């Protein structure tokens, strides 16, 4: 075993894990908010996330075709695609709730879950259909922006690109904004009230349906933002690439305690770090017998173990089981 190597790559791995973790945290918020309010796993959230990425790439490709990509300053471009991705994904989430989940409210628990799985699969191929007709391709590459790809060399083995810093900054800003929204505004209070007790909330004059839609909007928008950041960070997207990150983000939500907003953030970061370390160190520690390809198993094992031994998650579950 090569100890200096193991120590040497540590900061880089940590940084990569952190970026991945914030991405998971943003996606996990969508799962956790919806679960908090409806006790329902929004299985289609992974596709809502990737729709955000597709909205972003479409705008970037359109801007490049029009020659604006070089003309406009990059922070403006980034802000534009983030807002557009959030809007697209948020609106999609609201429509999905309206069409496929609301008619099933009050049905046995598994019914809406099966519907959500159906929506997830349907959306994957719908994106593929739309992009196939529109661009005759569904594996799309984010146009690169030179300023974003600039790398700072911190030491010989560690470097960090501008886009990584942007991803972290954007994720932190959004997590803070959401936290403030939920805890310090009237709307946030209404959301928490509905999560606590729908009947009581409606007696207090809260429009429960509107709040549920709003929850989907906010969760979807966070997912959409994560999608755009995912595209900017990793470049290549296709209609199916949302599924695995979505599943991992769900793992993150469970890890932090589903229904619990700070929990989702912590769970995301922890899972991102775990995965980055597993991906880099597993191969080194086992002499190449097991490599980075086992990182998915790692994440799923975390999910299974957490659910079996501490289903409340790290920070504990806010919602209780319905009697």
């Amino acid at each position, binding site marked *: 075993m090569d100890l200096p190597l193991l120590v040497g790559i540590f900061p880089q791995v940590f940084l990569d894990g952190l970026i991945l973790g914030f991405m998971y945290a943003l996606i996990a918020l969508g799962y956790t908010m919806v679960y908090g309010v409806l006790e*329902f*796993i929004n299985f289609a959230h992974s596709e809502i996330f990737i729709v955000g990425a597709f909205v972003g790439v479409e705008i970037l490709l359109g801007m490049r075709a029009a020659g604006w990509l070089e003309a406009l300053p990059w922070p403006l471009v980034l802000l534009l695609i983030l807002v557009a991705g959030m809007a697209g994904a948020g609106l999609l989430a609201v429509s999905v709730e309206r069409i*496929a989940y609301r*008619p*099933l409210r009050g*049905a*046995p*628990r*598994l*019914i*809406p*879950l*099966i*519907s959500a*799985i*159906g*929506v*997830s*699969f*349907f*959306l*994957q*191929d*719908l994106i*593929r*259909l739309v992009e*196939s*007709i529109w661009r*005759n*391709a*569904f594996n799309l590459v984010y146009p690169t922006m030179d300023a974003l790809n600039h790398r700072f060399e911190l030491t010989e083995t560690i470097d960090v690109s501008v886009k990584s810093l942007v991803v972290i900054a954007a994720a932190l800003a959004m997590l803070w904004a959401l936290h403030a929204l939920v805890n310090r505004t009237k709307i946030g209070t209404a959301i928490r009230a509905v999560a606590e007790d729908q009947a009581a909330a409606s007696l207090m004059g809260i429009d429960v349906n509107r709040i549920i839609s709003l929850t989907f909007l906010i969760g979807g928008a966070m997912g959409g933002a994560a999608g755009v950041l995912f595209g900017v960070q990793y470049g290549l997207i296709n209609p199916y690439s949302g*599924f695995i990150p979505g*599943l991992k983000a*769900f793992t993150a939500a*469970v890890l932090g305690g589903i229904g619990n907003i700070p929990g989702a953030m912590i769970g995301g970061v922890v899972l991102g770090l775990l995965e980055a370390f597993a991906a880099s160190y597993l191969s080194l520690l086992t002499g190449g*017998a*097991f*490599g980075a*390809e*086992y990182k*998915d*198993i790692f994440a*799923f*094992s975390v*999910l*299974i173990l957490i*659910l*079996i031994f501490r*289903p409340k998650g790290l920070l504990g579950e806010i919602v209780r*089981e319905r009697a």
Partner: protein
Amino acid sequence: MIQAALATGLVGLSAWAVATFPRSVVVFLLFQGSLLFVYLARIPRWLRTALLALALLVLMPVLGHFNGYYLEIATQVGIFVALALGLNIVVGLAGLLDLGYVAFFAVGAYSWAIFGSPHANIMFGGGFPLAPGWFYAFLLVGLLLGAGTGVLLGLPVLRLRGDYLAIVTLGFGEVIRVLANNLDKPVNITNGPKGITPISRPPVPFDVPYAEAFYFLVLLIVVVVVLVNRRLEDSHVGRAWEAIREDELAAQAMGVPLVRSKLLAFGCGASFAGIMGVVFSAKQVFINPESFTFLESIGVLAMVILGGMGSIPGAVVGATVVTVLNLQVLKGFSLWLNELKNAGVVVLGYNLADLPTQLEPAKYERMIFGAILVLMMIFRPQGILPVRRRARELGTP
């Protein structure tokens, strides 16, 4: 009396039509529809049995001579019927949503693939593949392995609440797939993404061609599985499963052993998939992890949901409809569209030759599965052929 004549006539007529127009998809669909009619029509029991037996034992293999692909489809349908019936026990009877069901199918398939091909030599030195006759022993091995894996998975996860259980089984299915993809090192067990080939086919009596032989083998297994399912449904175990599905607490209070019943459901469901996995690997001669993805699990789930959770005829019909949709309708539509494209047909002023090349309708099975799941949940959660109790529970909003 009229219905009896009608049923007999329909089967005969549609079989004749298939023999006359062996390339027409519509006609073959008609033949399948006539079988459903036979099942649903108010005719004497002996006539129904006789007609179904005639159609499946005689007509189908004969029609296979006119168009060999139909026999292949029928065999595939049979495999998926068994899978759907297995999943039906877990999801429909016991009410446990299993999203990683295809994992058990994979376990069975890999068991015969490894020992029925020269691949096992890598691990055990020499002496492989096993003699083809071992295939029949491996049907039992597949069953036991499937059941064992089911129980093994069930043990830790059965305490979980329904939706969590679904996600964990999904994770388990993915774990099995990742393992199949990557266990070519340090010890080469699955040969990774390249898959395993050539897998031995079983010896067949009377020199029946393989296509027919597999058709009859699958048919035999399906018949056994249906009979087992019907007996299970009315047994005390079946009652226990349904009690758990309806109300776990009440069932427990009535003395239903929760853990044991749930494990039994997982084991029974998984064992069917295990057997069919063995048949599948021998039939395909080649397997790789691509055949055992999450998509397949959802496909089987869509079959169960479409037919009606907990309903045996429902699972059969659901599996047939979904498989035929996938193998025939989507592919047929794809071919038809391609022909129109190549011919440069103009529809409403739009030249079909300009259609995007990436648009391949045959690839949209996810959309079909997804649409089935959502539409069924919203409009008919009890399925197209519901069992009476489910119809009462889910039918009236």
